[in-house]
């Protein structure tokens, strides 16, 4: 056959298959799979974009080049040539003098377009706060409350900044890129960069950070980021909000994991529906294939026909599914707009591509392996009237798994995370499947139920154990998601919110001297406040790992390089700090022994392993000790946390300053001022604004995750439908036989309802167990809360399962009433 005639044959074949309605179920399964997938993708893409937007506001730009020199003119020109917006931000520590007093402050000189992203809130001389893209005009300066308080300044005063005198015209209430480093927080003075030269403060060797701020659209920014990567000046680095703000990074990473997991669940469930539909389609086409082979088509020509068919089907349902996914996502947005509360950015182009790509991937993974078996269909099958079963081999599940992994990696942009999730999910599915299998086995061996309907319902389930297990697993996962949200929610989601407890500290105090501790505690006692926990803080530089000197310049990773360059804050204490969790090793074994406990993220970045020996240079002496434990730290708990801890015996003798955190409510704010007045050397850092931001972010993410869990449940119901459709012929034939044997409608209905009810009860039971497990793990591992077992979940889960499954299967019950016993007489002929 020529290629052209083959193509014509394929086209006619595809048209007939589509017209005959044989493909409807598969196409629908695929369509829904893609719809579920793309709606999640669109939704999470938009939510992520909203988050990134919010995050860039924390940088006050999309991209920041941070250097110890002004950015080279070549870079500025290139940025302007590319149409990017530019702004400057130069910061350095220096003394501020006013009213005969002096204090150390961070100066921040900003250019006219600052801030490029986010908004500035300033209180003017009229006492009214104003918000917007604001910066001090030339000749004026803005100070924050701490500086005003410290120097007893008021708006309208003049202050000396180097050789210049500036008019104090505003109080900084909130700056978008403020508080980039919690532990180096000192009073802030902001002025226009036009005045910088006149101050004479910037000279050779000044410790200034020059930040070139850039903003533009996504493509421009990512292209420029790449270009900059190759043209990075010495002593410069790109700033990234996720690195700058550990508490934001933690929230983002958690959200990404949650969203990724839900998306993966939906994909997995949808894939199960597609797999069921493909099996049914191919099982029904064995005979026609044999006929085609009889008519002289070679096995590869037959395969070609079906591959063409599936390719077309995949592209069509993929495109339609992407459209439907977009529509679903719009509805989702509508639903959650009350919570998300703002206009979200448009989704990126890759979500549109995801539709057809996902559809083809699903088919390649799930349909290709069984399709290949079509080559082995013998023309003899026509004569023998054999029913050839779709043989399952190892190839099919493996291919499906790979297809899933590819999809997940695409969606999450992170192969290793996707692989872990997939592995975890496979194990989870296998566990649930095993439980389901065990229950079926047990049920089949229990003494017969007295009610006929119940018994035959159970037998129907046990007849197709694999199908029953697939249905149970798929639905259980969906219902579990629902239960987790509605019932375990308090334990899980709000536990996440509780990781930033309502009484989270909103003030940090640093620079407390050894001899001030008792007096400071007294102040708290007198004010009727809870005693703050004081932690010693010792600056030290990591100089060697396993006696190998640490050379920052030799480190490949930029973040590692920066960590190695700077001084660490070390601390010593007896017990594991609250909010910390051991992930490796054990807490001090013999407190007299020198040893370190290292935060796991830092250990990962610097390549520190349990048992390694670290050497720190602290005040000129070298401290050597082995790492005996690694800790996970809840950075978003807003408690005082340290990268490296030692037992008291090791570092107690070192001079230390002390740090603490505490919470003040509105009326108590004055206490902070009194504290500063009493201990002028201490610095109080206010983190209320950051706290509020993080809390708002967590709230939004929670809503997004809820919406996606509902989608996962919908995908679970789809699997049930696909399974019911796949067994429709068998069921109708069963029903017809029973009808011929004289079963009444009520009896038939009882059989179907019993099957659905058992299915629902199993599903609900497993879902409840799963939800309990998730609640337990989340409470114990993620949030360090005591684990309480909610046994009431079991009846709730079962009831929920019965309701969902019965509702989903109701069309089948309706069909029973219309079933004609005549069907079986026809079936044999």
């Amino acid at each position, binding site marked *: 056959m020529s290629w052209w005639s083959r193509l014509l044959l394929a086209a006619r074949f595809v048209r007939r298959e589509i017209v005959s309605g044989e493909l409807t179920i598969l196409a629908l399964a695929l369509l829904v799979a893609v719809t579920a997938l793309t709606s999640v993708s669109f939704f999470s893409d938009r939510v992520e974009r909203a988050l990134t937007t919010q995050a860039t506001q924390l940088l006050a730009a999309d991209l920041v080049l941070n250097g110890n020199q002004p950015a080279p003119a070549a870079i500025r020109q290139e940025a302007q040539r590319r149409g990017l917006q530019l702004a400057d931000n130069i910061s350095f520590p220096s003394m501020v003098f006013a009213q005969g007093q002096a204090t150390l402050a961070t100066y921040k000189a900003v250019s006219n377009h600052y801030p490029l992203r986010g908004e500035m809130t300033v209180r003017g001389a009229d006492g009214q706060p104003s918000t917007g893209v604001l910066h001090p005009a030339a000749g004026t300066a803005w100070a924050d409350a701490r500086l005003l308080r410290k120097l007893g300044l008021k708006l309208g005063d003049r202050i000396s900044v180097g050789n210049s005198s500036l008019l104090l015209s505003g109080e900084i209430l909130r700056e978008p890129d403020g508080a980039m480093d919690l532990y180096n927080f000192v009073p802030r003075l902001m002025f226009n960069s036009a005045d910088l030269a006149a101050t004479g403060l910037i000279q050779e060797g000044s410790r200034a950070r020059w930040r070139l701020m850039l903003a533009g659209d996504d493509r421009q920014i990512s292209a420029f980021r790449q270009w900059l990567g190759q043209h990075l000046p010495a002593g410069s680095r790109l700033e990234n909000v996720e690195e700058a703000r550990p508490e934001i990074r933690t929230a983002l990473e958690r959200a990404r994991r949650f969203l990724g997991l839900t998306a993966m669940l939906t994909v997995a469930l949808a894939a199960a529906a597609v797999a069921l539909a493909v099996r049914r389609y191919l099982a029904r086409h064995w005979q026609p294939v044999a006929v085609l082979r009889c008519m002289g088509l070679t096995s590869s020509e037959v395969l070609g026909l079906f591959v063409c068919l599936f390719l077309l089907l995949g592209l069509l349902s993929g495109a339609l599914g992407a459209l439907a996914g977009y529509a679903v996502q719009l509805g989702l947005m509508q639903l959650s707009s009350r919570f998300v509360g703002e206009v979200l950015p448009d989704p990126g182009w890759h979500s549109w591509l995801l539709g057809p790509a996902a559809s083809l991937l699903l088919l390649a993974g799930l349909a290709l392996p069984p399709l290949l078996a079509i080559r082995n269909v013998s023309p003899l099958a026509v004569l023998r009237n054999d029913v050839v079963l779709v043989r399952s081999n190892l190839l099919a599940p493996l291919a499906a798994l790979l297809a899933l992994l590819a999809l997940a990696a695409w969606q999450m942009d992170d192969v290793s995370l996707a692989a872990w999730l997939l592995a975890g999910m496979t194990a989870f599915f296998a566990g649930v499947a095993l439980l389901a299998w065990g229950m079926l086995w047990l049920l089949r061996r229990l003494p017969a139920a007295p009610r*006929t309907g119940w*018994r*035959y319902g159970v*037998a*129907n389930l*046990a*007849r*197709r154990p694999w199908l029953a297990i697939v249905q149970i697993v798929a639905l259980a996962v969906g219902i579990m998601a629902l239960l987790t949200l509605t019932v375990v929610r308090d334990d899980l989601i709000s536990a996440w919110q509780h990781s930033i407890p309502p009484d989270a500290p909103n003030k940090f105090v640093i620079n407390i001297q050894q001899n001030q501790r008792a007096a400071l505690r007294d102040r708290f006692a007198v004010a009727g406040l809870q005693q703050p926990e004081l932690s010693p803080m010792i600056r030290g530089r990591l100089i060697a790992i396993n006696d190998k000197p640490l050379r920052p310049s030799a480190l490949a990773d930029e973040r590692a390089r920066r960590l190695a360059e700077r001084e660490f804050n070390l601390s010593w204490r007896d017990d594991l700090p609250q909010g910390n969790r051991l992930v490796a090793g054990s807490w001090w074994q013999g407190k007299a022994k020198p040893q370190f406990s290292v935060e796991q993220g830092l250990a990962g970045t610097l390549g520190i392993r349990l048992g390694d020996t670290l050497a720190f240079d602290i005040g000129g002496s070298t401290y050597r000790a082995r790492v005996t434990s690694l800790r996970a730290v809840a950075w978003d708990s807003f408690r005082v946390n340290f990268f490296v801890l030692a037992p008291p015996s090791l570092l107690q003798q070192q001079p230390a300053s002390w740090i603490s955190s505490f919470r003040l409510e509105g009326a108590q704010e004055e206490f902070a001022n009194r504290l500063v007045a009493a201990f002028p050397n201490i610095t109080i850092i206010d983190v209320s604004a950051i706290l509020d931001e993080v809390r708002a972010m967590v709230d939004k993410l929670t809503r997004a995750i809820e919406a996606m869990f509902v989608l996962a449940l919908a995908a679970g119901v789809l699997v049930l439908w696909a399974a019911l459709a796949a067994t429709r012929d*068998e069921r109708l*034939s*069963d029903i017809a*036989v*029973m*009808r*011929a*044997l*004289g*079963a*009444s*409608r009520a*009896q038939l209905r009882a059989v179907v309802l019993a099957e659905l009810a058992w299915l629902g009860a199993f599903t609900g039971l497993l879902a409840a167990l799963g939800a309990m497990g998730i609640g337990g793990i989340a409470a114990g591992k993620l949030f360090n809360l005591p684990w309480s077992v909610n046994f009431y979940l079991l009846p709730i889960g079962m009831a929920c399962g019965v309701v969902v499954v019965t509702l989903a299967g109701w069309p089948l019950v309706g069909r029973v009433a219309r079933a*004609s*016993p*005549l069907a*079986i*007489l*026809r*079936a*044999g*002929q």
Partner: protein
Amino acid sequence: MTPIDNKAVLSAQNLAKQVVFNGEPLNILHAASLSVGPGESVAIVGASGSGKSTLLSLLAGLDQPSSGEVALFGQSLAGLNEDGRALLRRDKVGFVFQNFQLMPQLTALENVMLPLELAGRKDARDSASQMLTHVGLGQRLRHYPRHLSGGEQQRVALARAFAIHPGILFADEPTGNLDAATGRQIIDLLFQLNSEQHTSLVLVTHDNELASRCDAIYRLVDGRLNGARA
């Protein structure tokens, strides 16, 4: 038109079935009449497509005629709804199908218990197991249909049909899916059970040799029934 025979187990008068195909009325069955007395066996023979299965489905109350009337055990089917007809079948009618139609999810024993349980019989298990022993499958009660040969499956089907001691048995090509030797054994068993239980039999077949073992033979040609008592 002959009146309905009240002594007959099955009596059909002027049965016709018309379907609409591609907008045109199509007569699959023309004015068929027959009656079957207690313990009597009747064969309906005809070529493929002659309307045998249609006739059988009308006689057994699985389908409704376009015109004419069927009475089972003196009761007209016309006055009964689907559930009413099902009730009649449940208590007094047995079926044997060409492709066995056993429930794959049920064991041999459970398949035979099914009609007994549908009828609410308390001794379903004992009766079914006796019946299976009677057809020679006493050792295979717990086997599923997929583990049984074609002949064994049809034996289970026979046990299921006779378990309720039906007044009449409808058999649709009972040996159609079996080899000749197995087919003969099944037919022997069918006639043996039939005479033991004094059941009336309506046997649809295209096998003339098989038909000749019945008391009466009807030939169906192009939807017309030509009666001929042996």
